[in-house]
């Protein structure tokens, strides 16, 4: 188990700054997800922690020890790769043995032929075999031990990759989009399994993904990363409910949050497209701001409601459990996506005019530059 700290990490490839002075601290035994769109530098960050890539500046500290010049093989971390990176010429059993052999056996004991004559080797090998078997049992892959990776399905390969990381009992697990090569159903299943594994092992997990569902469901805390910077590092619910800026708000949540322009007056009152919103700013300031309404925090209202948005349905998505209506608002050219209970919107048709309301305590306010603005709802 380990606590990992990153201090002022930056990384450039030639002139391209991939990571810009980044700080992150990961607590002992925590499951942390680094979430970001592809190309945001999250995989590079993971490889820097692993020691596969060296940072241009800054420190990596594992359990209080600065490891900048420690090689990947000596950091005692395990990693699960997106491509699994199993050795294709070795059987599952042999794949699981590799990290154990390389670490527990001396150079001499690994030397072909000669090693048969070393007294302690066989007892060590029995012990290692035992460990491999244990890991295989945990992951339910004992029946696959003699197969080669090429003969396994994607899900099975994934388990073997996790197994290879597990057998060594590393101080932390690093996972680089481990589920992205699996099909959708299996991905949901493996999500639960990895969470389960974390609960069992109680080791630090650093998990990199671009899939917000994985991040939201699995992690204790998550770090939202964009353009080489961590924008917000907090619990999933905090990030969902109180994003620090518009970028994070737009990245988390599906469908995407609706953003509409609004005005705030000197007393802190807010109007959005002519409608007063019963919300006020904690530090009143006059000017134009933006409001964010998550689709799941809006609703269809009856046709006689007033003080609400009004618009025409352009598209209807029926997901069974929910219906999403895409609405062109009457005022300006703004669009909005509204989530509705199925029975409320069942006979809404494309082209119909509808009225839309919102849950006022869930509305988020942002400055023009995207920074989040603290608000309180008027009671």
């Amino acid at each position, binding site marked *: 188990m380990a606590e990992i700290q990153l201090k002022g990490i930056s990384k450039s490839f030639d002139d391209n700054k991939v990571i810009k002075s980044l700080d992150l601290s990961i607590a002992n035994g925590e499951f942390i997800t680094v979430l970001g769109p592809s190309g945001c530098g999250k995989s590079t960050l993971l490889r820097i922690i692993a020691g596969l890539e060296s940072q241009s500046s800054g420190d990596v500290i594992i359990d209080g020890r600065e490891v900048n010049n420690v090689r990947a093989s000596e950091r005692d971390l395990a990693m699960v790769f997106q491509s699994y990176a199993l050795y294709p010429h070795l059987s599952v059993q042999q794949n699981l043995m590799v990290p154990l052999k*390389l670490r527990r056996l001396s150079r001499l004991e690994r030397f072909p032929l000669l090693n048969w004559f070393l007294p302690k080797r066989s007892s060590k090998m029995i012990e290692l075999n035992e460990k491999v078997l244990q890991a295989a049992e945990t992951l339910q892959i004992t029946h696959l031990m003699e197969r080669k990776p090429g003969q396994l399905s994607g899900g099975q390969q994934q388990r073997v990759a996790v197994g290879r990381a597990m057998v060594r009992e590393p101080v932390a697990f690093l996972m680089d989009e481990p589920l992205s090569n699996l099909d959708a159903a299996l991905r949901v299943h493996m999500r639960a399994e990895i969470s389960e594994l974390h609960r069992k092992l109680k080791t630090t997990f650093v998990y990199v993904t671009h899939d917000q569902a994985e991040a939201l469901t699995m992690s204790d805390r998550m770090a939202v990363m964009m353009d080489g910077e961590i924008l917000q590092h907090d619990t999933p619910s905090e990030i969902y409910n109180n994003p620090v800026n518009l970028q994070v708000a737009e990245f988390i949540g599906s469908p995407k949050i609706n953003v509409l322009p609004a005005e705030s007056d000197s007393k802190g009152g807010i109007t959005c497209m002519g409608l007063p919103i019963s919300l006020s700013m904690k530090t009143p300031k006059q000017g134009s701001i933006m409001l964010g309404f998550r689709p799941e925090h809006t609703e269809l209202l009856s046709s006689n409601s007033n003080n609400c948005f009004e618009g025409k349905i352009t598209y209807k998505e029926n997901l069974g459990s929910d219906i999403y209506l895409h609405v062109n608002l009457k005022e300006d050219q703004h669009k909005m996506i509204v989530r509705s209970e199925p029975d409320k919107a069942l006979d809404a048709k494309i082209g119909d005019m509808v009225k839309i309301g919102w849950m006022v305590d869930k509305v988020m306010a942002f400055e023009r530059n995207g920074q989040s603005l603290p608000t309180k709802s008027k009671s």
Partner: protein
Amino acid sequence: MGHTRSHFWFVSPAVILMFVILILPIFVAATFSFTDYNLGSTDFKWIGWKNYESLGKFSSYSKMFTASLTYVVIVVPVSVLLGLGSAMLISSLRFGGELYKAIFFLPVMATLLAMAYAWEFALDPVMGVINKVLDDGCSVGWFYKFFTGSWLGFNPTESWYGGICSDRMPNWLGNKKYALGSISFIGIWQAFGFNMVLYLAGLTSIPRDLYAAAEIDGANSTWEKFKLVTWPMLGPTHVFVVTITSIRSFQVFDTVEALTRGGPSKSTYMMVYAMYEKGVKQNLIGMGSTLTIVFLGFVLVLTMTQVYFINRKVHYS
């Protein structure tokens, strides 16, 4: 489907040519290998296995097998390992890799016969640069010490280099002690660039993640990574490179014909040259055909071994 019998016109020229040019000759050779036919005479006798028996009887044929096998046993491993080594060095370079690749590949492109003559001049006992360097080196202290091994405490006059210094520079192609070695050297010089290019292609197809995984798993030296990832991942390349180099070295002809004509005292009497000498130069068709059949047998065995390995061992997916 109605569309036509066009396939017939497409396929038949190729099929006819395959039979006439590739398959029929095998039968012709097999047939003549049981005769004493020679191109000058009008008729021939069936002599059964006599030609094959003479392969075992005459010392020139046992010398032929020895020379051919020795050549293959020297050229194949050395040119394969040199190819692998240079490929690994080049692929790990930060700059200049393309230049070395081009240089090492030059011998593959160049007309071997012309280059054989250039080597002949380099290896010439009197006016060749190689002997000139060796000769001049005898009077250069460190060079002499290094190559006689006296820096390791050996007696310099007993060493090979000490010997040629006090006596005479070697006649690389004319002395039967050196001729096969010299021909093999030219063979290696010509072949390793080809192997290098195949290995370079093999190396680039190894996923980078495997090296990262090996590093994480605790393989901290270059050697460990080579053992765990590079060598096994090159499996299919090894099989191919070894087979093609073996078949090609069995076929060595240009250098032998141009530089030694099988001599001195048959020390470089290689199979294809023997086939040419018996069958074409001396018109002994019967014996030449026998050699052809034996040679085909060797090539077939090599290819079958390759097929076996490809199917059995080295395919991972």
